[in-house]
């Protein structure tokens, strides 16, 4: 299958740089898959599991939240706010965060700002848990 160059870089450093067959991730507009020779394309990334099919056909997945994706002249750059390969995800910590966020949301006297914050925390924890293959 045709491949294209993918660079994934977050504020924690360069996460991936190399030829891939495909990348699938969730944008603010819905799920998206990029294959080689895709037209020039820019979008913002939502929250979800990203799947990358490497040049040799192996698949890797990661928790991918926020940021942007650009495909320019067969060169794809993914610049997420956070990107964690599934083997790096600390599931116990995510479970813990999920529990705490749920407890917080169960309180009835929550003001709007802390509700939004707790919801965001819950979503992030859920994305991490779902992106980790080993549970």
């Amino acid at each position, binding site marked *: 299958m045709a491949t294209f160059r993918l660079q994934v870089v977050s504020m924690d450093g360069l996460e991936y740089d190399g030829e891939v067959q495909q990348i699938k991730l969730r944008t603010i507009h819905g799920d998206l898959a990029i294959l080689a020779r895709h037209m020039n394309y820019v979008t913002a990334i939502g929250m979800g599991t990203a799947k990358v099919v490497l040049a040799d056909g192996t698949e890797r997945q990661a928790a991918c939240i926020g*940021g942007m994706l650009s495909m320019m002249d067969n060169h794809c750059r993914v610049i997420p706010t956070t990107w964690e390969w599934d083997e790096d995800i600390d599931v116990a910590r995510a479970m813990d965060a999920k529990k705490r966020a749920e407890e917080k949301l169960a309180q009835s006297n929550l003001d709007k700002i802390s509700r939004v914050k707790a919801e965001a925390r819950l979503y992030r924890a859920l994305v991490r848990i779902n992106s980790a293959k080993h549970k």
Partner: protein
Amino acid sequence: MAAGNMKAVKLRIKSVQNTMQITKAMQLVAASKLRKAKEKADNSKPYFKIMRETLIDIAKGNTDFQSPYTKQVENDKWLYIVIAGDRGLAGGYNSNLFKFMESETKGRDYMVLPVGKKSVEYFQHRGVEIFTDDFAEVASISISECFGIAKLICNAYSKGKFGHVLLCYTEFVSMMTQTPRSTSLLPLADFEAEAEAEGEEKKPVRDLILYEPDSETVFNAIVPEYLAGLLYTAINVSVASELAARRTAMEAATDNAGEMIEKLSLYYNRARQASITQEITEIVAGAEGN
């Protein structure tokens, strides 16, 4: 040689020794902090570089001027985000950056968003219009604060408070060299102008870019994001530069102090020897006289 002079030399040696102790301690502290900061800066570098490349590419191919962030603006007011240090005694780190700023802003109507105590002090002293000085301490700025700054800038930008945003920081070239740099942040068209100034030729736009769902939504989502990201990474790089500059400066100061002590001790010993010789001569002369 008078005894008073010898005492003065002895005091001087003591004071230089004290200074040396301080500079030595500062050097060690900077060196140990530097290791961590350098790691952070190294991790930040690819993000900064790739993000800028991407934005330049988008600016080049962009034919869509719906979003306020891509529109060419007539507003000729500039906002400079200036990242300097919290403390002095870092060699030319702060003053180089301010000198660089001065040459950059020549003839422009500008205001600043200072980051770092030295930066705040400098612009307050010079009476430059300050956008906000809430972010005085560069060492304690977190990612979420960067997002806060980005949001502030986006709001003020869409209200037309300024037409261009630029970031001034100090690039960490190596342990020995740090150079002040600037990069455009807004509007996107500035990236293209900057790339051209750096020697890339302008290509006619052939392939249009597809924005999904539409350009305005995409830019509204990614602009605050990349502002915060570039800001955070630039801060990391600047902090590493500051520590490296301080380490080098303090190393030089310690060496100088050592040299000074050596010279002064030599001078002191000579004076002591001379006074002893003189005393002996006097005694001998006195004994002969009897």
